[in-house]
């Protein structure tokens, strides 16, 4: 048996042994295991599952073992993902630090920063928020104005960040701040880590069209930040931000599998709500045809990701290919949401939780919430700009 097959066998056995049955069902929002100082577990099983995965370093399977990660190779990580998918294991940990900050810190952080932050991320001890956008700096992110003034022994941060995901529940925030206003707007930006317990940090939730308040506005009023909290060097924040954005976009393209509360099957839902004729075809030919469109796009996206994986492995990456993933993935997600809503008919119209089944309510809420995905992390239009210039070589 090849080493990778052996790894698969061991992984499968370990997961079967260690993943509680209750953690093998699609995760509902209330039972997601979010990192944090005040981490709470919805059930004892959730706690058990998290702790077992954490202790193997499999909350961050491919990160180096010296910082508590799993130390798996790319191939082994893929096997773990496949085996977890096979058993429908829930993600053992949710955190922006895990998805975004960690990978960027591993590249740009200094040793002390890695020692300080990476293992806490792996262990789910700290919940991170992201401070990028500002009310006047959205797509034009580099025009950001929140400033960090050098006060000799510390920085003094003043300004405001918006769309800070769940900042009201976060312990720390990684943010882009202006440390030098003299050069071009891309210069003079630094990447900084701020403990949200520091005096002068406050957050206000923003109510969304989904009825939830996933996003906040975060304010910084004379917030003192230690100088060693700059990552990647003073005025070099744009490079760190770009590294991190890559992870964010990859994440958002596959959001459905990671964060989506429940992966709805179109065919199953349509069979239930629309029904089939005696020959086994859905009763609504137009919806049937649109399901074909959607399945073809969604499955093609899986193959595109698989192709990317093989390109990485054989070190022949088409530089343009990864740039397509966020644009395609988020569009496909919204296309599916629209279709799910249409299948529900008037059951998709109620705004009162109690007059829906939980499943119906979930579909409606996701439909509205997922409008965020083609906006956050670089709008679809920005993605197309990037593709046009970097992949296709069209002039600025």
């Amino acid at each position, binding site marked *: 048996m090849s080493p990778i097959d052996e790894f698969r066998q061991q992984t499968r056995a370990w997961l079967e042994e260690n993943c509680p049955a209750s953690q093998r069902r699609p995760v509902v929002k209330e039972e997601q295991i979010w990192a944090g100082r005040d981490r709470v577990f919805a059930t004892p099983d959730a706690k058990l599952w998290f702790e077992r995965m954490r202790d193997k370093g499999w909350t961050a399977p491919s990160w180096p073992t010296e910082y508590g990660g799993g130390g798996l190779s790319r191939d082994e990580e893929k096997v773990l993902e496949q085996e977890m998918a096979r058993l429908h294991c829930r993600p053992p940990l949710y955190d922006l630090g895990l998805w975004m900050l960690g990978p960027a810190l591993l590249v740009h952080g200094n040793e002390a920063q890695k020692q300080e932050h990476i293992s806490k991320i792996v262990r789910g001890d700290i919940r991170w928020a992201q401070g990028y956008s500002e009310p006047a700096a959205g797509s034009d992110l580099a025009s950001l104005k929140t400033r960090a003034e050098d006060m000799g022994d510390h920085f003094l941060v003043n300004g405001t960040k918006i769309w800070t995901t769940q900042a009201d529940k976060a312990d720390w925030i990684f943010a882009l701040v202006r440390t030098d206003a003299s050069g071009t707007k891309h210069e003079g930006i630094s990447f900084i880590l701020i403990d949200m317990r520091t005096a002068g940090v406050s957050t206000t939730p923003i109510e969304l069209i989904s009825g939830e308040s996933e996003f906040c506005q975060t304010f910084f009023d004379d917030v003192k930040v230690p100088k060693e909290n700059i990552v990647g060097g003073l005025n070099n924040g744009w490079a760190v931000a770009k590294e991190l954005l890559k992870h964010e976009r990859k994440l958002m393209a596959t959001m459905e599998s990671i964060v989506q509360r429940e992966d709805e099957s179109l*065919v199953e839902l*349509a*069979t239930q709500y629309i029904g*089939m004729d005696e020959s*086994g*075809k*859905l009763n609504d030919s137009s919806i*049937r*045809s649109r*399901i*074909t469109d959607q*399945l*073809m*796009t969604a*499955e*093609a*996206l899986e*193959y*595109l990701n*698989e*192709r990317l994986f*093989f*390109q990485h492995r*054989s070190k*022949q990456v088409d530089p*343009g*290919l990864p740039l*397509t993933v966020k*644009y*395609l993935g988020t569009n496909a997600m919204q296309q599916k949401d629209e279709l799910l809503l249409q299948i529900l008919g008037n059951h998709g119209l109620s705004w009162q939780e109690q007059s829906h089944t939980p499943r119906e309510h979930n579909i409606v809420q996701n439909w509205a919430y997922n409008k965020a995905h083609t906006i956050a992390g670089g709008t679809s*239009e920005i*993605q*197309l*700009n990037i*593709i*046009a*210039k970097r*992949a*296709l*070589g*069209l*002039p*600025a």
Partner: protein
Amino acid sequence: MVLNEEQRLLQSSIRDFLNQRAPVSALRELRDNPTPQGFDTSLWRELVDLGVSSIVLSEAHGGFGFGWMGLGAVMEEIGRHLAVTPIFSSVVIGAALIEAADDHHSTEILPEIVAGTRTLAFACDEGLRFNPGATATLLNQGVLQGEKSFVLNGSGATDFLVLARTATDTKGTDGLSLILIPRDATGVTVDTIHSVDGHNFARVKFDQVAVDHRQFVGAPDHAWDFVSGVLDRATLALAAEMLGGARELLERTLAYLNDREQFDVKIGSFQALQHRCAQLFCQLELAQSVVYKGLSAIDQGQQDVAKLASHAKVLAIDCYQKMSNEAVQMHGGMGITDEVDIGLFLKRSRVCNQILGDSSFHRERFATLCGY
């Protein structure tokens, strides 16, 4: 899902060869001065010498182990150059059918196909579009009667592989047989059609054609058992060709946008055009991923690629059609002239749409295979 070193070398040698020997101008030449065979026989001879006529066959039958990913790479180049060759009809379908049938024809005629001295054409479609389940051409008591409406490369074929109904009380794809009929057999009439894309197809009539049992390819009445798998693989190869054409169009269009100036700037600097190009690129890579998935599934020994074949064909159709329409539009007035090549790709895309099943056929098939 990535070409290996040998496959990449194969692709670049075929590309160099076609750049030299069969650029798009060769298609124009053939269109304006058609040959009786419908293709340039010396070009085909040279391609045979390069080994493409055995590419899909097992090594026992002269294949080189390039696999279907390797074939896909060759087909992509054919699509990029709009090269007219019998590779698809005679090799990807014809030789593959003979090999899959695994009977006396494998030793008798396969070597001649590989040598390029015999070219096959698959005679399947009868009405306006591909629908093998509706085959009405009938072989009854040794006599073949019927008419085939869209026989690709029928013009130059030495033999036809005819899909015919042999069990009269059957419906759909049950009760079909595959029969090898020489072009010069008594009762065969070949009506050559020059198609819109500069290629050719034929309408072939079989009137009281005498058939003996040695002309059956594979088991009588059960041909669909092996024909369908061959056609699925061929459909993936065709999709690879189509995406080669689409990719060539994207590159040509980008070159034009980087060159053409209006309002004192390169028109490629306009966001309206940039976004459309970026969307076309996304669509192309999505379709390409399905084609690679299908081709590599065959190479990994997956027996049933029906769903992937239909999936790939639909996305290839949508992509090539959109790409060719947009390429014409973005070339402005030049796009609608015969002077530039864009219109040739536009026309080729619509012909490819019809080969081995159009979008409706494959969307329906995908849905059925997925159980809704």
